[in-house]
């Protein structure tokens, strides 16, 4: 049974990721009052990109992209999707935290090899932004871990099954709010699209990504969307008994988030950092203090 789960989970995540990308473009188009591409447009793009013969700047350039996509796939094995959670017992939240940093690190290494200042500026923005949203994210995750006194995410999900959702339980409500505030930054969509800003730094680290590299990068972006939202659903919305309800919850979260963020313009990196280190961090710290008070 585990083998099936190990194979099924990445494929499901891949499909959901692509669906989210297509949905995002469709909703964005609708907001711009135009028809927009079909939902399957990302899949078409990927097929087209795979057929193009791209350019490589050296081994690290190639390996970096492969490594970052592989790490995103690995991360999915740790995230419970409803009942499916292949690698639940080998490290828990800390491994998730650390593998989450691998994907941007892989892209950063390969982008650096591309010997292009646009890529380097993009990477420095990506890492600064990562530091930006990690400050509140770490406080939130620590609050959840100290509240449930466990390191493994499967325990957290099962505890939420019998009691109420974490979002609605008193101590973790503020942490949930803080997580929602930084969700666009984790996913890298609209207001925090600074790292892949097409106009300013010609799509940042992906400036030299040609055919198959760009395809892998788009897939990795899709998986990133999936991971960000799946983590939120697991930690705060009780992560559903069976996969369909889990994907429904993710869909709701994604669409609501998209509506809010589609209207916002792209922030400059200083504004993003100032925002991330001010409101969400404050709320997250208050959440943490509440958890500690209740725990004593």
């Amino acid at each position, binding site marked *: 049974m585990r083998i099936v789960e190990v194979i099924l989970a990445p494929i499901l995540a891949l499909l959901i990721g692509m669906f989210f990308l297509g949905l995002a473009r469709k909703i964005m188009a609708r907001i711009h009052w135009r028809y927009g591409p079909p939902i399957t447009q990302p899949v078409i*793009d990927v097929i087209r990109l795979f057929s193009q013969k791209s350019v490589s700047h050296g081994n690290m350039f190639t390996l970096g992209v492969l490594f970052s996509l592989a790490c995103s796939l690995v991360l999915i094995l740790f995230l419970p999707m409803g009942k499916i959670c292949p690698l639940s017992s080998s490290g828990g939240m800390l491994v998730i935290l650390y593998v989450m940093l691998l994907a941007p690190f892989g892209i950063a290494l390969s982008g650096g090899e591309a010997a292009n200042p646009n890529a380097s500026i993009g990477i420095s923005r990506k890492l600064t932004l990562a530091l930006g949203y990690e400050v509140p994210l770490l406080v939130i995750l620590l609050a959840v871990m100290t509240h449930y006194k466990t390191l493994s995410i499967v325990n957290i999900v099962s505890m939420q099954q019998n009691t109420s959702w974490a979002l609605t339980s008193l101590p973790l409500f503020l942490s949930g709010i803080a997580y929602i505030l930084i969700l666009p930054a984790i996913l890298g969509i609209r207001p925090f699209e600074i790292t892949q800003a097409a106009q300013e730094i010609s799509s940042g680290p992906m400036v030299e990504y040609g055919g198959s590299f760009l395809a892998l990068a788009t897939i990795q972006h899709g998986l990133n969307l999936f991971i960000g939202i799946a983590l939120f659903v697991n930690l705060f919305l009780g992560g559903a008994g069976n996969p369909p309800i889990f994907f429904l919850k993710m869909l709701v979260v994604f669409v609501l988030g998209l509506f809010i963020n589609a209207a916002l313009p792209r922030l400059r990196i200083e504004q993003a950092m100032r925002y991330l280190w001010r409101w969400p961090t404050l709320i997250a710290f208050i959440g943490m203090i509440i958890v500690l008070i209740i725990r004593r």
Partner: protein
Amino acid sequence: MDRNQIIKWLKAPAKMGHKYSLHAIYFCTGCGIIEVPPVITARWDAERFGVIPVATPRQANLFLITGYVSVKTLKAIIRTYEQMPSPKFTVGFGSCPINGGMYWDSYNTIKRLDKYIPIDGWIAGCMPRPEAIFVAVTHLWTLIDKDMADGYKRYRSNYHLYRANQEQLFGELEWPPLFPLEDQVEQIA
């Protein structure tokens, strides 16, 4: 638009992929670029056909050369064209790239663009309207279907000719030749 026919996808995914995901490189060469923003925004919405502007030549497969091409811009156009991944299509906008247009006797503009880089499609008119662009896109689909949009192949096979023309115009070029020149002569496409 045969985008939803699965059999076609299975038979020739690459061709279908190229048809319905034309990423145009956002590179303003001449006066025609003013036509592109209305094409990609709400009123005419090129994204319906899968055409979106992208920032770098590496990510693109469609190259719109809009408006007259001055001698200095031609250098940038050649370098960008050579940086695009191989199945790539170029569309010439307006009359100036075709035969020099109203700058037919100017000392500083290129008269026939296809002497220097291969062009797959032309759109006549001194700044064609957005509908004309969509006609061009659909025309390009048919060319791709019939394998006639083979600008990149022609560039590959006649590279020594193109390179000679470019060197004749510019004298010595700064970037090395894209394909090795010596085995060009007897090369068949």
